[in-house]
């Protein structure tokens, strides 16, 4: 899906999307390597961005309290959409059903989507002509949209973005994204003055 821009063969693109299982990590990786950053910096950026999934898995602990197998399968499938639907349900049983239902639907869409994406990328040639390079950041913005609606999230996002913007011309590629974590500290400092 993502790697088509980097001129990677179709097979690799498919395998990468299926195995890494996190489009946002791939976006971050490509943002860093695309800017001339090292593999190591790109991978660290991918890991930090993937913390979103760790947080989604944390949210699932409220629904899946027992059963190592069920908790494992639920955790590795944690995405924004299925966790979101699950958490909106009134009781735990309905929440579990909603989570699995959305999970199955999403997995089908994901694998069909990356196949179409890789094939199309191959056929279309210069994907920039179709604005594909804007498609990725737009998707990311839509993903964080809900947390940017809250004051704390908005401060974290604005400061993180500003740190990155200032550092892009002066710091090695990858570092601006990693150091944007400073936005979290800013949000915690400014949004709750009563905290010691």
């Amino acid at each position, binding site marked *: 899906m993502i*790697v088509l821009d*980097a001129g990677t063969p179709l097979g690799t693109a498919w395998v*990468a999307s299926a*195995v*890494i*299982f996190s489009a946002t*990590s*791939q976006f*971050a*990786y490509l*943002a860093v390597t695309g*800017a001339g950053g090292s*593999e190591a910096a790109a*991978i660290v*950026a991918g*890991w*930090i961005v*993937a*913390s979103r999934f*760790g947080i*989604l*898995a*944390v949210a*699932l*602990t409220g629904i899946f309290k027992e059963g190592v197998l069920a908790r*494992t399968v639920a*955790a*590795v499938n*944690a995405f924004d959409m299925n966790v979101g639907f699950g958490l909106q349900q009134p009781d735990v049983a309905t929440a579990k059903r909603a989570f699995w239902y959305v999970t199955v639907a999403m997995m089908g869409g994901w694998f069909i989507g990356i196949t179409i994406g890789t094939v199309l990328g191959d056929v279309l040639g210069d994907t920039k*002509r*179709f*604005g*594909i*390079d*804007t498609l990725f*950041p*737009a*998707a*990311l*913005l*839509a*993903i*964080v*949209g809900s*947390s940017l609606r809250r004051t704390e999230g908005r401060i*974290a*996002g604005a400061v*993180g*973005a500003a740190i*990155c*913007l200032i550092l*892009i*011309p002066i710091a090695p*590629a990858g570092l601006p*994204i990693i150091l944007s*974590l*400073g*936005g979290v500290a800013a*949000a*915690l400092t400014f949004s709750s003055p009563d905290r010691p």
Partner: protein
Amino acid sequence: MTTLSIVLLAIGTWGQRLAGMFLVGPALERRPLLASAANLIPAAVISAVVIQLTVADGKSLVVDERLAGMAVAGLLVWRKAPFIIVVIAAAATTAILRAL
């Protein structure tokens, strides 16, 4: 993208999901400050990735068709448009401006 980087990224994403379910989730129940810090990481870091993909070209900052596409995306996200509408409108804006 090398095989090693694919494997390392995969370990990072899968590992963090499992850690979230089995280690962090139970541990955070009594630590609200850490929990709210963790919740803010995606907003900060993904916003930075968005900036990088929108205005960076290597180490220089450029204003081009991508920024116009992302302005449309921002407006639509703010208006709570569906995900698919946001990405298509953003890509279409950039593509149309490039074609002009």
